[in-house]
C-alpha cells in the first residue's frame, strides 16, 4: 500500500502496529514462561510471569492512547479505520492471553505447594499448539497475510480437540485418585486456560482478516466439537 501524503500519519500507525506486535511477542513469552515454570515447578519463574503481566497491561493502555490520537488527528477511514479499530480489539485480546498465562503461573504456585504430582503430557501439547497459533497470527498481522490468518482460525479446532482429550484424561485421573482432586482441578483449569488462549488467537485472526480484506471472516461459527465448555465450572 502507498504511504500517506502526510508522513506523520504513517508514523502514528507504525507506532500503533509496533505496540500490537510487541504485545503479541510478550504474550507468547508469557505462555512459554508459564509452561516452563509449571513443568519445572519453578516458583520463581512463575512469580516472574505473574509480575510481567503488568507490561502487557501497560502496552494495552499505550495502544489505546495511540489509537485515540489517530482518531482525533486523522479521522481515519477505510483501511486505516479498520486497522485502528482492529488494533484496539487485538490489544484487548492479547492482553487476555496474558491473563490466562498469568493464571497458569498462579496455579503453578498453588500446585508446587501440594507436593509432587505428574503433569499431564497433553498440557504441553496444547501449549505448543497455542504458541504456534500466537506466532502465526502475529506473523499474519505483520505481513498482512489473510490466508495465514484464516489458517490459524481454522486450526483452533485442533486445540479444541486436544482440550477435550485433556478434559477426559484428567477426569479419568480424578476418578482413579480422588485424593488428588485438588491438584487435578488445577490441571483442568490450566487446560481450559490454554484452550482460551487459542480462542483469543482465533479472535485475533478474525481481526487481522477483517483489517486486510474489509469483510468479516465467516460470521457463521464452524461446528464446535468442544463438549466441555458447558460442563466446566468457570475460572476464578
Amino acid at each position: 500500500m502507498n504511504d500517506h501524503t502526510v508522513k506523520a500519519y504513517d508514523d502514528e500507525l507504525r507506532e500503533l502496529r509496533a505496540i500490537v506486535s510487541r504485545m503479541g511477542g510478550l504474550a507468547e513469552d508469557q505462555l512459554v514462561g508459564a509452561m516452563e515454570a509449571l513443568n519445572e515447578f519453578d516458583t520463581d519463574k512463575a512469580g516472574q510471569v505473574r509480575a510481567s503481566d503488568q507490561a502487557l497491561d501497560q502496552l494495552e493502555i499505550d495502544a489505546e492512547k495511540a489509537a485515540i490520537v489517530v482518531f482525533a488527528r486523522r479521522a481515519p477511514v477505510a483501511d486505516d479505520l479498520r486497522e485502528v479499530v482492529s488494533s484496539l480489539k487485538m490489544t484487548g485480546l492479547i492482553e487476555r492471553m496474558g491473563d490466562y498465562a498469568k493464571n497458569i503461573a498462579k496455579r503453578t504456585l498453588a500446585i508446587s505447594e501440594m507436593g509432587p504430582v505428574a503433569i499431564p503430557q497433553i498440557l504441553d501439547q496444547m501449549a505448543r499448539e497455542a504458541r504456534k497459533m500466537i506466532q502465526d497470527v502475529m506473523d499474519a498481522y505483520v505481513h498482512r497475510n489473510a490466508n495465514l490468518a484464516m489458517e490459524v482460525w481454522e486450526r483452533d479446532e485442533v486445540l479444541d480437540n486436544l482440550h477435550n482429550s485433556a478434559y477426559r484424561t484428567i477426569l479419568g485421573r480424578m476418578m482413579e485418585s480422588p485424593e488428588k482432586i485438588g491438584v487435578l482441578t488445577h490441571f483442568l483449569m490450566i487446560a481450559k486456560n490454554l484452550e482460551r488462549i487459542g480462542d483469543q488467537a482465533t479472535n485475533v485472526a478474525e481481526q487481522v482478516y477483517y483489517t486486510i480484506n474489509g469483510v468479516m471472516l465467516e460470521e457463521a461459527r464452524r461446528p464446535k466439537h468442544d463438549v466441555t465448555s458447558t460442563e466446566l465450572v468457570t475460572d476464578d
Partner: protein
Amino acid sequence: MTDTKIAKMTAKDVHVFYGDNHAVKGISLDLHQDEVTALIGPSGCGKSTFLRCLNRMNDTVATCRVEGKITLDNEDIYDPSIDVVQLRARVGMVFQKPNPFPKSIYDNVAYGPRIHGLAQSRTDLDEIVTVSLEKAGLWNEVKDRLDSPGTALSGGQQQRLCIARAIAVNPEVILMDEPCSALDPIATAKVEALIDELKGRYAIAIVTHSMQQAARVSQKTAFFHMGDLVEHGDTTDIFTSPKEERTRDYITGRFG
C-alpha cells in the same frame, strides 16, 4: 448501480467535452429522492462539470459539449422541447460561494417564485418566503429584518439564504457544489443539519472536498477520478471497505 427504487434523475453514459478536453468520460449515476449523493474526487476530476450537466448550467459555456442521456422523471432534460428555465427551477443549485442577489432577504427568496408565477397574491408570496426560510433553518435569525440586504448576512446565513432561494421554487432535485467550503464549523453543521432535513423531500447531490462531510451527510458516495466514475456505492461501504484501490488511496490521503 442497479437500484430497485425508481430514480429521480438518471445519468447514462454522460460525456462532457470542453473543446478537446474530455472532462467527463461516460458517467452513469442515479439520484434518488430520500437520498444524498456525495461526489468526491481530486480537483479537476469533473465533479462540478458533471453536476452542472444535471441542470444544464453548461449550456452557457460555448466550448462545452454534452453527450449521453440525462433524465428527470424519465424525461430527457436535453430534449429540445425542454424549457431550461423551468428545468432549473426543478433542479436547483447552490454554489460554493454564497451568492445572494444585491437585494433584500425577502426579495432574494421571492425572486424565483415571482418569475415562475408561483404566487397568486402578496399573501401567497409571504407564505412561500416564510416557509422557505423556515425550511432553510434561517427564519428565526432573519424574521425581524427581511428588508435588510441579503449580502449583509454572515457567510453561513448567506449560504442558507441561497438554499432558501433554491427551495422557494419547489425544486425536486438540489445540487450543491462545495456549499460549505467558505463556512466555519458551526455554519457548516447548520447546513449539514439542513441537508439531513431536506433529504426526505428532495434528491440531493453534493460535491465536497471534505471526506468527513461526505461521510456525515450522504447515503451514497461517488468517487470521480480524471473524468471517470471509479466507484459508487453506499457511503458506509465506501468509507469502511472501498472496493477500488484508487478510492482507498484518495479517501485515506495516499494520493500522489
